[in-house]
């Protein structure tokens, strides 16, 4: 066996480890092991690559591994759980730009070296790798900026943006064709591809509003995988192709799940402009709320909670912003101590990334078997005494079911209005991302607690303890 055979066998081993690792992630019990198996696969791939005979300078490699490893480790240890969507966005961006850089380096090496003219497959793959990689890079950083609050979370709708995007896309494809027809002058077309993709990444992400972030994050995740797969085509490396396509598939599936949970097509999300254009149908805030909203106090809510057999928490992005997950867990502890059954209703797009609420509640030590998915929890609301909505709005808006003209029409929602009493903790009656009033807040069985999520929950904990003791 020559070295090349051994190296390829090792990449096969790495690919098997990646697949086994991802399979482990399908169950909470095996997930930690799955992640370890995946990272072992990566170690195998890296180590075996280092044995490649062509590698001359190990000094540079050491520098790169130490610097990158240190930055990655510090980021991973320091990041707050509430900052997880931003972190995922950044990592995506780094993966994307790495792919674009590798393809650039490969082009340089092949075109400048002796030997045969590079084939069309290599050139097309390089162009695509540069395109997707660069687009992922700037797109991810805009997503990061929106999540971090540096860039506005509103959807920014530039006039004529569709025409502009299509034009940029056409020029980028033109540049790839140039690259293929005249590989000796690769530098200009390749740079052009990357620059165009940088601009496209910004233009495609900026119109997407805050609540659509779960879709964008999943989609960027998919892109970073596809960029890696394209780089695999450039280097004729099966390890890269397999790993990249696995990730690409993962991202696409998550994207689909998120779109389905909002009853919107991917195209509709990407085009953006949700909310702002919604005005036509529906009723104004005054019609919906006028004189019908019941304002409550922590003490009054505590009395309702004291008699509750089952309480379901309905968390949303507001809980993440206020960091109220620990308060929620405290309230749950008090409730469970008095014998109340406590559950959590998780809407697929609650928060800013897939599974966002699950991670936050897990951080607050909520057992994962109390986190119930939408389909499963919805029939249970009828037998729920109190549903506590904390920081969620559009995902509990009954208008989605009643008004076919509403911008959220057909979106699956959590049927909290079936619960005997609904408690909504919210700072004001301001609308959610969809920009429409929520009749739930004016329902007869709804008690509004106007407060910051964290402070409101704390007050309820204190009040409930006093009520129980009294």
């Amino acid at each position: 066996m020559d070295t090349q055979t051994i190296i390829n066998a090792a990449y096969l081993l790495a690919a098997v480890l990646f697949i086994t690792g991802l399979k482990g992630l399908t169950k909470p019990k095996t997930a930690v092991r799955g992640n370890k198996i995946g990272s072992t696969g990566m170690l195998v791939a890296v180590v075996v690559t280092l044995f490649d005979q062509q590698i001359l300078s190990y000094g540079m490699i050491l520098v790169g591994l130490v610097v990158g490893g240190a930055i990655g480790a510090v980021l991973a240890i320091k990041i707050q759980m509430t900052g997880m969507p931003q972190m995922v966005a950044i990592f995506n961006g780094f993966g994307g730009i790495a792919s674009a850089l590798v393809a650039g380096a490969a082009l340089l090496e092949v075109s400048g070296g002796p030997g045969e003219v590079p084939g069309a497959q290599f050139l097309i793959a390089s162009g695509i790798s540069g395109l997707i990689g660069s687009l992922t890079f700037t797109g991810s950083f805009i997503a990061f900026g929106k999540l971090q609050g540096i860039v506005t979370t509103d959807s920014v709708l530039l006039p004529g943006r569709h025409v502009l995007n299509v034009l940029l896309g056409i020029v980028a494809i033109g540049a790839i064709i140039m690259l293929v027809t005249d590989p000796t002058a690769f530098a200009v077309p390749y740079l052009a591809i990357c620059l165009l993709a940088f601009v496209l990444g910004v233009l495609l992400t900026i119109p997407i509003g805050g609540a659509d972030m779960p879709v964008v994050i999943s989609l960027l995740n998919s892109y970073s995988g596809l960029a890696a797969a394209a780089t695999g085509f450039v280097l004729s490396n099966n390890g890269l192709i397999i790993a990249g396509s696995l990730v690409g598939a993962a991202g696409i599936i998550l994207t689909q799940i998120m779109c389905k949970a909002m009853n919107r097509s991917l195209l509709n999300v990407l085009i953006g402009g949700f909310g702002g254009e919604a005005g036509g149908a529906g009723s104004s805030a005054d019609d919906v709320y006028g004189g019908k909203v019941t304002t409550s106090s922590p003490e009054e809510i505590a009395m309702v909670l004291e008699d509750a057999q089952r309480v379901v928490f309905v968390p949303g992005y507001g809980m993440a912003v206020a960091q109220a997950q620990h308060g929620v867990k405290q309230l749950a502890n008090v409730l469970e101590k008095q014998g109340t059954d406590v559950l959590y209703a998780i809407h697929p797009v609650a928060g800013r990334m897939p599974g966002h609420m699950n991670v936050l509640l897990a951080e607050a030590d909520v057992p994962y078997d109390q986190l119930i998915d939408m389909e499963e929890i919805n029939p249970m609301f009828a037998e729920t005494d109190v549903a506590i909505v904390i920081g969620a709005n559009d995902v509990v808006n009954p208008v989605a079911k009643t008004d076919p003209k509403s911008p959220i029409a057909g979106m699956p929602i959590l049927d909290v209005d079936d619960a005997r009493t609904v408690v909504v903790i919210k700072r004001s009656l301001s609308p959610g991302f969809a920009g429409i009033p929520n009749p739930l807040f004016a329902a007869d069985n709804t008690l509004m607690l106007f407060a910051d999520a964290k402070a409101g929950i704390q007050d309820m904990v204190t009040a409930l303890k006093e009520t129980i003791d009294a």
Partner: protein
Amino acid sequence: MSQPFILSLTIFVLAVYVGFEIITKVPPTLHTPLMSGANAISGITIVGALLSAGLGFSPLTTALGLMALIFATINVVGGFMVTHRMLGMFQKKG
């Protein structure tokens, strides 16, 4: 079309299928760790970066390779570590 290309394409398509099959089974609770774990795997570009940085072909290739290597290593190391941290929170009870 060349044979190696068809071979690569075959592998690509099959891997996409495997990915679809496995990942549709991941429960929503684990969607975030799945995403960050998968993201770490997409850092596999590190392999290409190692080759580019280590070839010693020209200073420019080495520089590009070194930059790629740093970014890809952040992606890989950070991705797996942060996934591990999150999964630890899911693990300690339940």
